[in-house]
């Protein structure tokens, strides 16, 4: 990296907001995925204008730029695949405005997801997207990845809760899109930019929609002696048109690991549990909970428990949210997959995952958003064992291919990033890539923003090369 760029960055935002020593950069080489990519310099802007100036400076030195929130992403979206400048939004973490009357909050991208809810819960409001990492992940990262969470089932992904955005384009231009209140005339640009994984623009301000807390919440724990019974319960619930606020499944192997760590009350001898939450008016929640219990029982649930109070409810959710951490106790590393299938195919998919695990010599755990068919198989492996790592990757790819073959998709909430970009041709044709590439180039013509993400690098037609530091623009082949 050109030391002149580092000097200019320090002048621009102050030396305390620039990291360029190898030992400092090491932390930013990783995120929650199995991928790696080390930036050459990390910068912490405080304002939108800072971001704009940094981007202009990077353009001057022909260095790629990648945005990063808390680095909790699971697809390598916030890794500097092409080196260059990493803009970390951790210090743009202010809630700029709360408009409770109109159910809006204006926040900087580095605000932690849960902090929005904490700021508005006194008024009976909350921010609906609730990734498992919501205590640490940032809203900017949620916007980039279009993050979900357990309650996506009823309330949708991040895109459904974003009203307007302020963007910095790769040339440093600052633009506002969307409309704080109601609809903006014209194309739904927010719909395009949310989930574009930082490949079109950097997001510097977000106007989110707040939701009203439901009057009544009922949390059920359905315990099964067979995984098939649990998955058939989900299929029947969906087919009968019952949409709970959340419907999560933990298989026996996973719940035992969780129970040993969290003591959430999951029975260690069961084959699977469903954690189901219903919300709404008291009258609706009661009848929906009763209907769900009936379906669970008709599918041979050993027991259906209802959380008696807020403490029990929190404990059950603590078990679910910290499950990935619990699994960390069992192996040096774990690979959390993210695939989607039609919900009607759930029993078949779980059987196939088991078979794929056996074939590759892994016990694959399942803890996932069953209600919307969003699978999260977990492969435990030792990254120091190269052969084992290769097998883990092979098993993962086979599972994702299985999801596609069942009519599903590559990713439900983690994004494509650099984890699945080479798998994109499983879903998209050359014509699809060609159009996506034209959209990409309309905003990021030199691939200076987050290069090497989403698009397959190995595919001729849609190829977008990973632009590395110092490379001239226009490196597309």
């Amino acid at each position, binding site marked *: 990296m050109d030391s002149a760029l580092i000097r200019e960055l320090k002048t621009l935002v102050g030396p305390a907001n620039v990291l360029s020593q190898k030992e400092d950069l090491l932390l930013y080489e990783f995120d929650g995925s199995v991928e790696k990519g080390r930036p050459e310099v990390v910068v912490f802007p405080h304002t939108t204008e800072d971001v704009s100036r940094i981007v202009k400076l990077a353009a001057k030195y022909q260095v790629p730029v990648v945005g990063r929130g808390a680095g909790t992403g699971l697809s390598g979206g916030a890794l500097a695949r092409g080196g260059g400048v990493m803009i970390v939004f951790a210090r743009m973490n202010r809630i700029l405005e709360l408009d409770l009357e109109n159910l809006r909050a204006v926040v900087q991208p580095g605000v932690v997801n849960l902090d929005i809810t904490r700021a508005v819960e006194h008024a009976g409001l909350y921010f609906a997207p609730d990734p498992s990492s919501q205590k640490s992940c940032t809203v900017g990262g949620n916007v980039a990845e279009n993050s979900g969470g357990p309650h996506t089932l009823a309330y949708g992904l991040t895109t459904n809760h974003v009203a307007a955005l302020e963007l910095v384009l790769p040339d440093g231009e600052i633009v506002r899109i969307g409309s704080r209140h109601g609809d903006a005339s014209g194309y739904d640009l927010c719909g*395009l930019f949310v989930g574009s994984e930082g490949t079109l623009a950097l997001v510097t301000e977000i106007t989110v929609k707040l939701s009203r807390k439901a009057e009544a919440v009922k949390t059920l724990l359905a315990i099964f002696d067979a995984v098939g019974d649990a998955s058939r319960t989900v299929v029947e619930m969906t087919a009968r048109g019952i949409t709970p606020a959340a419907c999560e499944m933990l298989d026996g192997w996973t719940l035992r690991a969780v129970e040993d760590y969290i003591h959430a009350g999951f029975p260690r001898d069961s084959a699977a549990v469903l954690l189901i939450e219903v919300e709404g008016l008291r009258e609706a929640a009661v009848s929906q909970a009763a209907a769900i219990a009936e379906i669970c029982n008709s599918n041979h649930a050993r027991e259906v428990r209802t959380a008696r109070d807020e403490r029990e409810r929190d404990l059950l959710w603590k078990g679910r949210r910290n499950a990935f951490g619990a699994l960390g106790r069992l192996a040096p590393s774990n690979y959390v997959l993210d695939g989607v299938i039609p919900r009607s195919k759930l029993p078949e998919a779980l059987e196939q995952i088991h078979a794929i695990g056996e074939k590759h010599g892994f016990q694959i755990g399942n803890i996932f958003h069953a209600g919307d068919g969003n699978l999260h198989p977990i492969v435990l492996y030792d990254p120091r064992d190269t052969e084992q790592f290769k097998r883990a990757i092979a098993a993962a790819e086979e599972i994702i291919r299985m999801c596609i073959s069942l009519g599903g998709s590559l990713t439900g909430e983690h994004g494509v990033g650099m984890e699945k970009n080479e798998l994109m041709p499983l879903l998209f044709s050359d014509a699809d890539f060609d159009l996506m590439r034209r959209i990409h180039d309309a905003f990021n013509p030199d691939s200076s923003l987050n290069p090497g993400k989403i698009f397959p690098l190995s595919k001729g037609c849609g190829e977008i090369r990973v632009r590395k530091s110092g490379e001239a623009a226009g490196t597309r082949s």
Partner: protein
Amino acid sequence: MSSVANLATRLEKLIGNDRVRASEAALRDFAIAGRAPMAVLQPCSAEEVAEIVSFAAAEKLAVVACGSRSKLELGMPPQRFDLALDLTGLRQIAHYDPGDLTVSVDAGMPLNELAKALAAKNQFLPLAVPCCATSTVGGAIASGLDSTLRQQYGTPRDFLIGSEFVDGTGKQCKSGGRVVKNVTGYDLHKLLIGSLGTLAVIARLNFRTFPLPDLRGAHLAGFPTLEAALNFHASLLKSGLPFSNTEVFNSDFCALLAGFLNKEGAGVPESLAGCGWQVFVTFEGNAAVMERIERELRECSAHAQATQCQTINMQNSLQLSEALREAFDWLRRAAPSVALLRIVLPRFTPGDAAELLHASQQSPLRSAFALRACGVAYLAALADGEDAQTNAALERGVSGLFSRVEAKQGSATLLHAPVWLKDRINVWGAKRGDFPLMQRVKRAFDPHNIFAPGRFVGGI
């Protein structure tokens, strides 16, 4: 052979002579603001659409995609219009998985046929949009008109999960998929919603479907003043009760609504006949939920000193909801000359609403006003004549509305107006700061600018 005849012959080679029409009558049927195309084509597959678009791109011919043509007047008339693409030949349900609550349907499928297929499985699509009896699914999405159920179910961006379409180079593309949760690739299908066919020709749409509710009901409360009605409306939104739709109407709107219900042979709620302002609320759920909402609405109405209030039974509620769904259609026909605006303001205070009404009521105009909970108001300036003085009043009224909405940092769109007025007023209002980004999107989708050129925002 004339160039038009020659064109028709070449097109016939693409899709067969029985699906290319160039008779004067056929062309007249597809005219927009008096401008007729050179040919009307009815492809029967996405592949045929792609062939036609490739041809049009090579020949630089402007293409307007149509369904039932019920909303072709939306936006500005296209600057060029060579080929009308009649998509009613694409009308299959491609895939329906009731167990997964997802459906994939061709763009030319009539909405009501899709509704019947879904109802057979006790499901529905919450796309309660105008011209429902004739509209195609593709037209409903491309036109982007509001659904009366959006308060509860959201807009199509909340339940459209994927699409297949033909871009401006004639290539068949897709976005999204058939699963309810998916973040793979750019969400290009969201851009198609409300794009008026200026980005691509939609061939197929994938939706999340919803279970039909057990019961539906409605409540109507009357108030002597706009302020009282809006205060009541605001209190309902804060109540936490799950309403499907809440609207506030003025007396002219009520009179037109009653007239439409009468014409349809539907029951007219007594309170609609009263003067003043009405607040209309719909809701759904099981019997216990309905009983509670009805009771609380009666209590709230009494507390707000409503001059009258009425609980409306399920059958009448459905009829009234359908009538409101069709408001765009009957409002535009409600007088010899009508300018219908869709207005979004950061906040609809009583003062704002009164000011807009005042601006639209240039003598001798009347105005019908309806405000929905999602912050969108519909305001129709109704002129009973088409003489120069009345036309001048209509133009003054509409211009005044645009400038007042802009001053309040809102946005307005002229959904319907006489052609002469569209020639004088930009129906989309002032350009927004993000307009250059929209131009980039347009160029990426349609590099030859062949899709309904000039119809969309800012002349896109």
